[in-house]
């Protein structure tokens, strides 16, 4: 199990272009494929990962590893997530430091960036719709969307800090649910 977690997150780490929320879509896919946890458990984990400081992707890896296989799982998932970055960066730094100016790299990113955008957008849509386990418009979905809209307003209008967003939405959750 530990080995499997390590390998899965290493794969995720290798393809996690664009980082963070794009990776959530990838991780969710892997988790579903292996039936590691229910959709609502996964949502909880993303909320916890977003609440903690540090990168969301690594945080989610740690939490999923912990849920599925305890402390050892947390360690092996986190290592798996970080190791590809470390190795790739060392190779990049050692061999071709100016790779990002390369013509082919630039044109591949021309196609890659919109894909990453799609992955992030999908994560948002997916979590918005999935916020209730029952189908149809329930109070729980409505309240989640309300909190989401409030936070969006706060971020756009008042440049609310991510930590404030988390705290405010927690408070709103206590009141609304």
């Amino acid at each position, binding site marked *: 199990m530990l080995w499997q977690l390590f390998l899965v997150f290493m794969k995720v780490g290798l393809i996690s272009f664009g980082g963070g929320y794009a990776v959530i879509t*990838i991780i969710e896919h892997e988790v579903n494929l292996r039936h590691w946890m229910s959709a609502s458990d996964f949502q909880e984990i993303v909320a916890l990962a977003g609440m903690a*400081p540090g*990168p969301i992707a690594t*945080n989610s890896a740690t939490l999923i590893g912990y849920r599925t296989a305890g402390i050892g799982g*947390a360690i092996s998932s986190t290592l798996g997530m970080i190791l590809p970055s470390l190795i790739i960066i060392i190779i990049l730094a050692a061999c071709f430091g100016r790779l990002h100016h390369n013509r082919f790299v630039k044109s*591949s990113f021309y196609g890659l960036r*919109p894909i990453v955008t799609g992955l*992030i957008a999908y994560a948002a849509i997916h979590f918005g719709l999935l916020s209730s386990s029952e189908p149809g418009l329930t109070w729980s979905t409505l309240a989640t969307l309300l909190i989401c809209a409030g936070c969006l307003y706060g971020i756009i209008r008042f440049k609310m800090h991510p930590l404030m967003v988390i705290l405010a939405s*927690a408070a709103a959750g206590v009141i609304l649910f």
Partner: protein
Amino acid sequence: MRTTASKQLKIYTQIFWTFCRIGPSTFGGGYAMIPGIEREVVEKHGWMREEEMSDLVSIAGSAPGGVGVNLAAFIGYRLAGVMGAILAVAGIALPTFFIVFALSWGYSMFQDHPKIEAALKGIQGGVIALIIIAAYKMAKTALFDKTTAAVGISTVVMLMMTPIHPIYLIAIGLVIGLVAVQVKKHLGMQVYTEQRESKQQEPEPIYPEYYI
């Protein structure tokens, strides 16, 4: 011999300690870390110049993995080789690892408390808002012509309609980029692989901030 060894030990501890302090103080993920890293590395320690730093940031953003971790690895490597890279990554990852751990443990203790559960449900709404902002910011830099807009929209549609694994989409994206640019060049069209910067930009340095 002794002095170089102790010098090396000093830079090792400095690297580790510097990155240790950055992780816990940044909420909102990788891109939120960059200003903090910049302050420590450029201003406080004078380890590298501003231009060098922004070059590293753009490489760190284009390699797979979180930008914060990548940037730490890169800076660590520049300063002290492979060992420096490992220490920098350990420094940035360890504190948050323990914080996440404590959070998860704390949550499992109070999991059944209705108010805790309600707070976490509320946070889900907040996280969705953060994701939407991230998607919007990413879209602003990524979707700037018809090709990229079409690719972006079809990605979302494919993810919603089919059980396709995102890894294939990423591979398809790489190929589309290479092919589309070649085809456009062949047709004699003007090709921009990135958004042109002629438009009025805000004065603050803009990273494709998608709150990682």
